Each structure stands twice: as structure tokens, then as C-alpha cells.
């Protein structure tokens, strides 16, 4: 434990950041002791990202001060932060995918020969390997970054921070895309950093991680400081209440649903590089969860249903009819809605308005005059429907989607998937990166969708979510179905058992 009364290494006072029309931070104060892991929590839009960007030299505050080791710290550009020993690891990594691990770690600071100026690759690779050794991991310094997993890329970012001798390492949602094993490893790395006397500012939505690794936590809400406390003196229920500012039932629990006719059936489907002999059944009104560790083939499974990956063998049936989509377009026409797991890369159309983002998949339904021209009135009708139904917080139909918070962007994408009015919805990580309030709303929404008779396939790496709202859960491991859990068998232990050991647990016939 860290003595939080020790003189602060970093001290933020009265920090205010204003953007046109919005006060993103409002007089925030906050301090970090040497060798402390300080968690920063709050809903999306609470100001965490803005605070990080100020520390990283991307935003300039309108007022307030930051002191670093009792000296005024006023970064004007990212290089100032690096120079001061503050390394910010943003959610989107700043890595060159085609360069090697070592080249990325030492980018701009490559050791070179004093005479002919050639880069000393052997020395650079050796130094990089040494950095990874201090982190307790092994990554090949000569491998191109593009060949690494997301979690390894994160370790490269951390190594980069260590290579400039970062005193304060700031991590923004470091575990958002990691599997359970990778999270464990990352938390170990964070503890090692602390043991070396470095400070870590740890931003996360996942409170279990915060309790596992942090010494103190600061809660932000609507750009304001709400509370800073030792983690030993609080509970996750209390933190949730502080973040949301109201009581939230922390997880939605759904009553068991029998399910109607079979909507979708996969019969021994093999596809892509991973999926082998996958058989699943989805009934009308049912939420079918797909669990497993990252890399078990979940995205491939959703993409094969959505027509983005071709079936190699086996067959799919949609309401009993053979279903052979040639592409997402066919899936859409067949009434299947799809939510991609990567909101930014394959979800939002950042240059388009909320209205246009909602209607893009159903433009043939909003054609009015002459059957060719779009009818703005019909589009606004769709906008109004979904804005109300999904409680999308937006200034209006013409606001650019990029200006919404993550949770509201996700709701718009939900609307887009729902707009075809389909019988089947394939949801990939429906609440990744959204705040707790939006998460609960989205869970209620999924429940409502099934009440209207649609079948839902939900892939989620968030176990409490998967178990809390799925009626049945299939578990994938190495591209095969290794478990089918219903009723009281739907436990975290059973899912992890199937997923990590490949042992088969079937509480019901595979095809129900």
C-alpha cells in the first residue's frame, strides 16, 4: 500500500477545459503519489478522456494548474509530456504496424553509430527485449507490430513508456479488447510498474480490475470531481452510485423465456479459418449467448451468419428455408440485423449525421417521389422512432454521429441494426466501451426486442452480461462448440471451464 499522505508526484488543481458550447472539465482536482496506482472512473462523457488528453499535451486547459514534482507542468504538445516523464497510452494505439516491435519502442530515439549514423539494430533489439523482461513478458523485438495480438501491442506501448523512463504511465481502458488471461497478465504488469516505484493512472469501466489493482480511485461525473477514496474504504456498489449519480440495478436479469419457432439453425457449419462443425439453434423471442475466450471464433460465427464469411461445409436454415447469403447485403434483405464488435472501424459513418447513420441500411424504404428519391420526411420518421425508443441523446437528426458519446453512438448503431425490422439480430459485444447507464439501457432494449418476437444471437466477452441476459449459452473453444448451458448451469465457472479446458458441458441437447 502507498502512503497517500506522501507528497504528490502529480497534482491537478481546479482544472477546467472548455470546448465551444461544452465544459468538458469543470474545476477538477486530483493527485497521484509516487508508486501509486490511481484509478479514474466515470461514465462516458464524464471527462476522463479530456483529462488524459490534457496530461498528454493534446488539449490545453482554460484554467487550473498541474504540478509535477512541485513544478508547474504545462504541456503544449505531446513531446512535452514525454519529456516530463508522463506516458499516455490511449485506447487507440500509436504504433506503426509495418515496423518491428523494437523500431516502435525506440521510434525517434533509435541508437545509432556515431560515425556512419546507421541504426544499431542489435543494440536496439537487445534493449527492447530487456524492457519486456522487466515487464515479465516475452515478445520478439524483431516481429512486425502487425503480427501481434492487441494485448501484445499494448505491452509494446508500455515498453515505449518505460524506454523514455516514464514516471507516470497513464492507461486508457487498457483491457477493453483483452481476454481474461490477457487481463490477468496486464494487471501483473501494472503491479510490477508500481513495484518499481512508477505511478500508474488507470482508467477503466471494469470495477473488478480497479479493485484488483488500484490503491485509490477518483470518480468523475459530468466533468466534475465527485470523490477520491482508498479502494479499501469503498465498494463497487458505491462507486457505481457515485459514477451514475443515481441508483442502478447493476445488472439486468432476464426471466427464462421458452422461445417460439426456430428462426436460425446452423447445421455442422465449418467456415473461415476457425469454425468447425458448429451447430446452433436460435428460436423466436430467445437470446442466445455465445461465450468463449478471445480468439475462439466468435467474430467468425457472427460473420458467417451475416454472410461476410462463406460457409465451407454444412448448411444454414432461416425459418426452415435454406439460407445461403453471398454477402451482408443478402443477410440484410433476409431480415437479419448486425452489430459489429468494432464500433469505430466498422460501425459509425463519422462524416454523416445521426439521421443518415440510422437509415443507411434501409434507404430503399424511405424512397418517396418517383420511387427513386429519398424522402426526408420518412427518414425523420425513422429518426424520431428510434430516438424515442432507444433514448438516444442527441441535439437532433443533423448532428454528426462522431459528436455523440460512445453509448449513444452504440444506440444509433442498434437502431441501424433494428431498422430492417428483422426476425434475427446478431449482436457483437453490444456494450463494449459504453458506460454503465447506457449498458443497462441496452440490456433492457435487447430484452424488448425479443419480446417483439425477434431472435437474438449475442456474442459477449463480458461474462456477467452474457449470463445475465442470455436464455441459453453456447461456448466456443478453438472454433468448436464445446458447451451448451441452460437454466442453472449458466454459471461463470461452467463457461470458463468449457472455454479454457475444452471440456464439454452440455446441459441440453446441442440443438435444443
Amino acid at each position, binding site marked *: 500500500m502507498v502512503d497517500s499522505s506522501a507528497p504528490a508526484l502529480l497534482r491537478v488543481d481546479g482544472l477546467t477545459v472548455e470546448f465551444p458550447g461544452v465544459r468538458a472539465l469543470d474545476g477538477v482536482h486530483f493527485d497521484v503519489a509516487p508508486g501509486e496506482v490511481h484509478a479514474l472512473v466515470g461514465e462516458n*462523457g464524464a471527462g476522463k478522456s479530456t483529462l488524459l488528453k490534457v496530461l498528454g499535451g493534446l488539449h490545453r486547459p482554460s484554467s487550473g494548474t498541474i504540478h509535477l514534482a512541485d513544478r508547474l507542468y504545462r504541456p503544449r504538445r505531446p513531446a512535452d509530456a514525454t519529456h516530463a516523464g508522463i506516458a499516455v497510452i490511449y485506447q487507440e494505439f500509436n504504433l506503426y504496424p509495418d515496423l518491428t516491435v523494437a523500431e516502435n519502442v525506440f521510434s525517434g530515439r533509435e541508437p545509432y553509430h556515431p560515425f556512419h549514423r546507421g541504426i544499431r539494430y542489435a543494440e536496439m533489439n537487445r534493449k527492447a527485449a530487456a524492457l519486456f523482461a522487466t515487464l515479465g513478458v516475452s515478445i520478439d523485438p524483431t516481429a512486425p507490430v502487425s503480427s501481434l495480438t492487441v494485448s501484445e501491442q499494448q505491452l509494446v506501448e508500455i515498453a515505449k513508456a518505460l524506454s523514455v523512463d516514464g514516471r507516470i504511465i497513464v492507461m486508457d481502458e487498457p483491457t477493453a479488447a483483452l481476454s481474461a488471461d490477457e487481463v490477468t497478465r496486464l494487471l501483473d504488469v501494472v503491479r510490477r510498474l508500481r513495484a518499481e516505484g512508477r505511478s500508474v493512472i488507470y482508467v477503466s469501466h471494469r470495477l473488478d480490475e480497479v479493485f484488483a489493482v488500484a490503491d485509490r480511485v477518483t470518480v468523475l461525473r459530468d466533468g466534475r470531481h465527485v470523490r477520491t477514496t482508498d479502494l479499501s474504504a469503498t465498494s463497487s456498489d458505491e462507486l457505481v452510485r457515485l459514477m451514475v449519480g443515481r441508483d442502478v440495478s447493476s445488472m439486468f436479469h432476464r426471466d427464462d423465456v421458452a422461445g417460439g419457432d426456430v428462426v436460425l439453425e446452423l447445421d455442422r457449419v465449418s467456415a473461415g479459418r476457425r469454425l468447425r462443425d458448429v451447430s446452433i439453434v436460435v428460436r423466436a423471442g430467445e437470446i442466445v449467448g455465445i461465450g468463449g475466450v478471445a480468439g475462439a471464433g466468435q467474430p467468425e460465427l457472427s460473420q458467417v451468419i451475416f454472410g461476410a464469411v462463406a460457409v465451407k461445409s454444412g448448411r444454414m436454415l432461416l425459418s426452415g428455408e435454406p439460407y445461403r447469403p453471398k454477402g451482408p*447485403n443478402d443477410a440484410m434483405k433476409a431480415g437479419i440485423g448486425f452489430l*459489429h464488435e468494432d464500433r469505430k472501424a466498422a460501425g459509425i459513418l463519422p462524416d*454523416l449525421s445521426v439521421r443518415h447513420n440510422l437509415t443507411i441500411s434501409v*434507404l430503399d424504404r424511405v424512397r418517396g417521389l418517383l420511387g*427513386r428519391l*429519398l424522402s426526408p420526411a420518412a427518414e425523420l420518421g425513422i429518426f424520431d422512432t428510434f430516438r424515442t425508443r432507444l433514448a438516444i441523446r442527441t441535439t437532433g437528426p443533423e448532428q454528426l454521429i462522431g459528436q455523440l458519446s460512445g453509448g449513444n453512438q452504440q444506440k444509433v448503431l442498434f437502431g441501424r441494426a433494428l431498422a430492417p425490422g428483422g426476425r434475427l439480430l446478431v449482436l457483437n459485444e453490444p456494450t463494449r466501451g459504453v458506460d454503465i447507464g447506457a449498458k443497462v439501457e441496452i440490456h433492457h432494449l435487447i430484452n424488448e426486442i425479443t419480446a417483439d418476437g425477434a431472435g437474438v444471437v449475442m456474442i459477449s466477452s463480458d461474462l456477467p452480461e452474457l449470463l445475465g441476459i442470455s436464455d441459453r449459452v453456447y461456448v466456443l473453444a478453438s472454433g468448436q462448440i464445446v458447451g451448451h448451458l441452460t437454466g442453472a448451469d449458466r454459471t461463470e465457472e461452467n463457461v470458463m471451464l468449457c472455454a479454457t479446458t475444452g471440456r464439454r458441458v452440455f446441459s441440453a441437447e446441442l440443438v435444443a
Partner: protein
Amino acid sequence: MTAVMRKAPLLLPLLGVLIVLSVTTDSFLTGANIENVLVAAGIVAVPGLAMTFCLAMGEFDLSIGSTVSLAGVVCCSAIIAGQPAAVAMAVALAVGAAIGLANGLVITKLGVTPFIATLATLVIVRGLSLAYSDGHDQIVSSAALKYLVGGRPLGVPMPIVLAVFATAAAWWTMNRTRFGRWVCAVGSNREAARVSGLPVDRIRIAVYVLVGVAGGFWGLLISSQLQKGNGQLGMGFELDAITVVVIGGTALLGGRASILGTVLGAVLIETIRNGLNLLNTPPAYQRISVGLLLIAALAIKGIRRAEATTMPATAPEVAR
């Protein structure tokens, strides 16, 4: 006024140029000269409008200059061979469409990046045009072909009439039809467009065909003006077509388009060229001016963006 400036940032520079030229020359502000400017602007606006779709999609087509030449050569030699002008023109447009289709297929089905694919087509089609014309002028005398540029329905020069219709059609397609929305969606985030069920490949191919047809039409206009086809015509035209779009404010990275901006861009460029002519500036300096204008236009955008990013990197999240 500020709203107008945001919608049409070119209006102010255009007004400035107009005032300067009206003051410094006697010959600029005459009916005949203004008409010259608008005719020239109309001719470059038509392909510029098609190119706007391509840039809105986040891509561009370098092959259009060669298409101009081949379409002109094909049209003129067909007329020389005794075909009716209407047939000759239709064949020329079909040649343009075929080039666009080839571009679209190579880009979508073979996965070649647009820059390389259309650079290759630029060279290939130039070669075809030189081979087909055997290096000679294909001189024609066709009233129908001549009407494309020389005609004056209701006293208005044809290129202006064509440009007005093309602008209306392009604006309508971009802003009021499914196709225009799809083009912007593909330009904004191609993967998201694909996941949203849009026929992304078909959209891209269609845009290249559109640019090809527009290039063919541009070739007809040039041949109409010169009354000949030639394997050397249209050199560097691809840059003109892209310049008017970029100066008009359409983002090179796609996602958004300004149809009216393209038209204003065409008028601005041709006004400056005309003015430099009137001031007896040698052609070499005209090129330098257009290049500087291009940098200036994008620098203003770049500076604005830099200002925007030192504050919020993206627009701030809406307070909940």
C-alpha cells in the same frame, strides 16, 4: 453572411478576384468575356461533378485525361468513317463507360489501389488513343458535334446549359438519392458501409463508370471545340478535374461532398486563367498560379483543422 461563408467558402475569393480583374483590366467586365469564362468553366465543371462523387467516396481517378483523348479520337474517326454524329458520340461515351468499368473492376475485384489502377489506365488508354489515331489529327466537320460547344439554345451557349443541367442532376443525385448517400457512406467508412449491407463494390464500380462517361463527354466537348480528335489531347486534364473538386471543398478523404463547391471551383479557376490571359501572363505562369491556388485552398482548410485539433481532437462528447 457567416452561414453563406461556411456553405460556400469560395464565394469571397471569387468576389475578390472579380473585383481585382474588373479594376485592373478594361476587357474583363464585358459580356463577351464573362461568357468566355462561363463557357470554359462549364466545360471543366461537367467532369468535375463526376469526379466529386469519386472524391466523396475517398478515391480518385487519374485516367480521365486519356479518356478525353480516346473518346475524341473514336468519335471523330467514326464520323470520318461515315457514321452519323449521334452514333459516333454514343460510341465515344460507351468507350468512356468501358474505361470506367475496367477501372472499377480492377480496383474492386483485383484489389489494386485506385491510385495505381487509374495511373495504369491513364498510360494504357493514352497508348490506345495514340495507336488508334496513328499520331494524326482526325479532323472532322460535323454540325452536330460542333453544336455541343458552339450551339446557343435560347441564346445561351451550350456548355453553360449543359453545366447547369449537370449541376442540378449531380446535386440531386448526391443529396436526394440513395446512390449519393451510399457514396458518402463508402467514403466515410467503407467497412461500416459493407457491414451495413451496402453493395460496396457495385457502388465503387458505378462511380468509376460515371467518371468514365463524364471523361468521354469531356472528350466530345474538346473535339467539338477543336473539330478534331488527337492522341495528344487531354494531357494533364485529370489534374484539372481533381483541382476544381478539391478547391471546391470536397474532402480528399471522402465522406462529404460539395457539388456547388465544385461548380464554384470551376468558375474560380477559369476566372483566374482568363484574368491572367487578359493581363498577358504567359501560360507557364498560369500553371504556377493554379498550383499556388490549390495549395492556398488546402492550406486554409489545413490551418482550420489544425486549430480545431489543438482544441478537441474530435468534437467534444455531448454532455449528458
